[in-house]
């Protein structure tokens, strides 16, 4: 590294370490969107006020999400001489108690986990917190918690550990060192080869080898080239990219800079969905900081590399996550996909060679640059290297963001990390790949997550949404849900998608309403084949997947709807009636109070009854029943 560059980074690193490892107590509040929605702002305010009132010497900061989303608001506290402790479901009152105890150098009971040394992934060695004084022996180590035991956090390395609004903390954790050494020691072709050898495949859905894509673009001749970060995250039920952008925006920016250098680009764009205001705010701050420190702009870090980054906000269209549609949207037009080839790597934004990479892909790049292709490719399976972030949501106990090595089984993710299914219900399926993916049944629970294994099962890896479904989820309804989604998000340009998807959705609606006949299943399959063969873009071509995979694994459920006019899961409103289980009902009257249609009758302490003529099937009674006595 050139003397002046390394000195500059070293100075910022030192500055970052003063807040990363302060001499004083440090309190961190998980303040990503999910934390804020759970009340993190009030907790932060309470902590700040209490610290001021007690005239304490403490660093109080906002951090990103450590992934334990179901326990938000989360507060981490490091008292000098003790390990870092994490507390969950913190209320403002509880927060005050934590501060009061910390003031006395004490810790409160009830911590979820502790960390004795903070991992420094890029440097490879962890750094001890100052000592490990006792008093917390019964608190489990993070590395031993079922939620974390099987994780390997690469893209999420800094989320929850650094202040995302402070570039010096990112640098203190090895940030921008990769960029500096790539600019100094590597050539564009070499870094592209390194990423190719590492085996990194795109995390946005298609799984194309990132290094290979970069090389194609590098060899395209043009006066200008562009790199776009795809932060559109349209898959409903997935929020990995949001969490990275909110918790560690510089990782994505550094990845863009390295990618931009690898393909010979001069400009970068971050296309962020409009529903993510906090991500946009943190990205804007991060861009201000990199500008201030000469990490974007001209002659970056004293090299001859020029690159600038602009944020472009989406406007709420799922199809704009598709790369050719995304390009049209940045150009200020309706986001309609176009035929490929030519691929954007040859002709993209404003007709120039353009690379589109996903947020998680880019956040992984600096680590590969730092630790090498061999290190990265030692993690994962033959065809899928490294780790993958999943948003583990739906009917599962430990809802959150997890990053596991490729090849980890669905069982490990759902039952070990996720803690299984709540309310004593049975696992039914897990949906992966969003609207282009499918539902994987219990019989395949030992499937490893790996691009090829998931495709073989009839689903896809997709961007990382894992929606767990229990016995009370109707698979026909889920298929209908995805088709409704795709029908409303189809851009309408090609007929197979516009008309075909609508037609399939109509058949599914008929099935859910008990109006379908057996031949409709054949019709569904025929339509699916037709759309798959002839739609213009992947949105249409993959649209039949949710239907085909549920038909493959849950045909009985389709048959029950069609032949018996029954919805076994108790979801499809036209095929169910609400009733109260006389034996279970304790006569508390909650359902009667909640019913908006006056359909419930019954005396206190006696079993209640639902008048099916009046019942509008809104489910309000089921929500409030403390003993699950409402049946469908």
């Amino acid at each position: 590294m050139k003397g002046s560059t390394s000195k500059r980074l070293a100075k910022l690193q030192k500055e970052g370490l003063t807040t990363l490892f302060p001499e004083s107590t440090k309190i961190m509040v998980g303040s990503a969107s999910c934390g804020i929605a759970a009340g993190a702002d009030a907790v932060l305010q309470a902590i700040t006020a209490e610290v001021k009132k007690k005239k304490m010497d403490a660093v109080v900061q906002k951090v990103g999400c450590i992934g334990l989303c179901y326990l938000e608001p989360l507060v981490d506290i490091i008292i000098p001489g003790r390990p870092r402790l994490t507390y969950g479901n913190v209320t403002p009152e509880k927060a005050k108690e934590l501060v009061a105890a910390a003031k006395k150098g004490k810790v409160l009971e009830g911590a979820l986990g502790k960390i004795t040394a903070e991992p420094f992934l890029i440097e490879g060695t962890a750094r001890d917190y100052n000592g490990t004084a006792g008093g917390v022996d019964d608190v489990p180590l993070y590395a031993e918690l079922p939620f974390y035991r099987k994780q390997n956090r690469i893209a999420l390395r800094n989320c929850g550990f650094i202040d995302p609004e402070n570039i010096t903390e990112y640098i203190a954790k090895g940030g921008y060192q990769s960029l500096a050494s790539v600019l100094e020691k590597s050539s564009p072709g070499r870094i592209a080869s390194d990423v190719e050898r590492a085996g990194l495949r795109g995390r946005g859905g298609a799984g194309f080898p990132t290094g290979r894509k970069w090389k194609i673009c590098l060899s395209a001749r043009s006066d200008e080239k562009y790199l776009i970060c795809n932060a559109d995250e349209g898959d409903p039920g997935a929020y990995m990219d949001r969490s990275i952008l909110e918790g560690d925006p510089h990782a994505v920016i550094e990845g863009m800079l390295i990618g931009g250098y690898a393909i010979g680009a001069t400009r970068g764009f971050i296309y962020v969905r409009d529903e993510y205001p906090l991500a946009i705010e943190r990205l804007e701050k991060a861009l201000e900081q990199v500008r201030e420190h000469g990490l974007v702009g001209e002659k970056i870090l004293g090299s001859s590399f020029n690159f600038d980054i602009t944020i472009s906000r989406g406007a709420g269209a799922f199809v704009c996550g598709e790369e050719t549609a995304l390009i049209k949207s940045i150009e200020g037009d309706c986001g309609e996909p176009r035929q490929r080839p030519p691929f954007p790597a040859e002709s993209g934004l404003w007709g120039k060679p353009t690379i589109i990479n996903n947020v998680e892909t880019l956040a992984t790049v600096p680590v590969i640059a730092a630790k090498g292709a061999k290190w990265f490719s030692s993690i994962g399976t033959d065809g899928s290297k490294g780790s993958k972030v999943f948003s583990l949501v739906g009917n599962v106990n430990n809802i959150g963001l997890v990053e596991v090595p490729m090849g980890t089984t669905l069982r490990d993710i759902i039952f070990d990390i996720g803690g299984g299914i709540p309310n004593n219900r049975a696992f039914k399926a897990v949906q992966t790949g969003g609207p282009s993916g499918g539902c994987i049944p219990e019989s395949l629970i030992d499937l490893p997550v790996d691009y090829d294994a998931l495709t073989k099962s009839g689903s896809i890896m997709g961007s990382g949404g894992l929606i767990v479904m229990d016995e009370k989820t109707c698979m026909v309804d889920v298929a209908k849900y995805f088709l409704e989604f795709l029908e409303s998000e189809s851009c309408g340009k090609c007929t197979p998608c516009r008309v075909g998807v609508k037609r399939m959705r109509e058949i599914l609606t008929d099935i859910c309403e008990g109006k379908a006949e057996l031949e409709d299943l054949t019709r569904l399959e025929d339509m699916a084949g037709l759309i798959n063969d002839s739609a213009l873009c992947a949105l249409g071509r993959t649209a039949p997947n949710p239907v085909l995979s549920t038909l493959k694994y849950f045909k009985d459920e389709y048959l029950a709807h069609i032949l018996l006019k029954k919805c076994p899961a108790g979801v499809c409103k036209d095929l169910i009636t609400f009733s109260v289980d006389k034996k279970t009902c304790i006569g508390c009257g909650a359902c009667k109070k909640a019913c908006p249609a006056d359909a419930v009758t019954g005396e206190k302490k006696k079993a209640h009854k639902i008048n099916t003529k009046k019942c509008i099937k809104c489910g309000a009674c089921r929500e409030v029943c403390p003993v699950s006595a409402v049946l469908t």
Partner: protein
Amino acid sequence: MKSSSKASIAAILKQYDSGQDSLISLMQDIQSAFGYLPKEALQQAGRELDIPLSKFFAVASFYNSFNLEPQGKHTISVCEGTACHVKNADNLAQMVARELELNGDEGTSTDRQFTLKKVRCLGCCSMAPVVKVNDDIHGSMTQTKTATILNQYRKDKK
């Protein structure tokens, strides 16, 4: 359009050059100033930046986040993403529609206090089902909790 609105349109337009490249961002700025895209504002923008009005309408109807109609004072967005869907978000949306006496499953109440929208994933899937009122996200919602929040906003009006 009031003259004060004209002034703010002019201030927005000052930041843009003619041509289509920044069309979406321009429309987002107009919408955040007015809460929707008033026709007069689009006409003025079209004249000054040399973009046909039809282009604005095409883009506005393509993207879900644009409103061509004035919105209620408060916007209630019920998430219908997958994580919320499997936790019965449908019932929440229907309940709000009933409470607001809407004709369809989305729209603005006759007193213009509320607009109900169904949205696809607010990125807070860990707290499904999720309801957003204006900029505030509420997680783990039930029909009862939603009704309570609705009533709070109603009371605030008085």
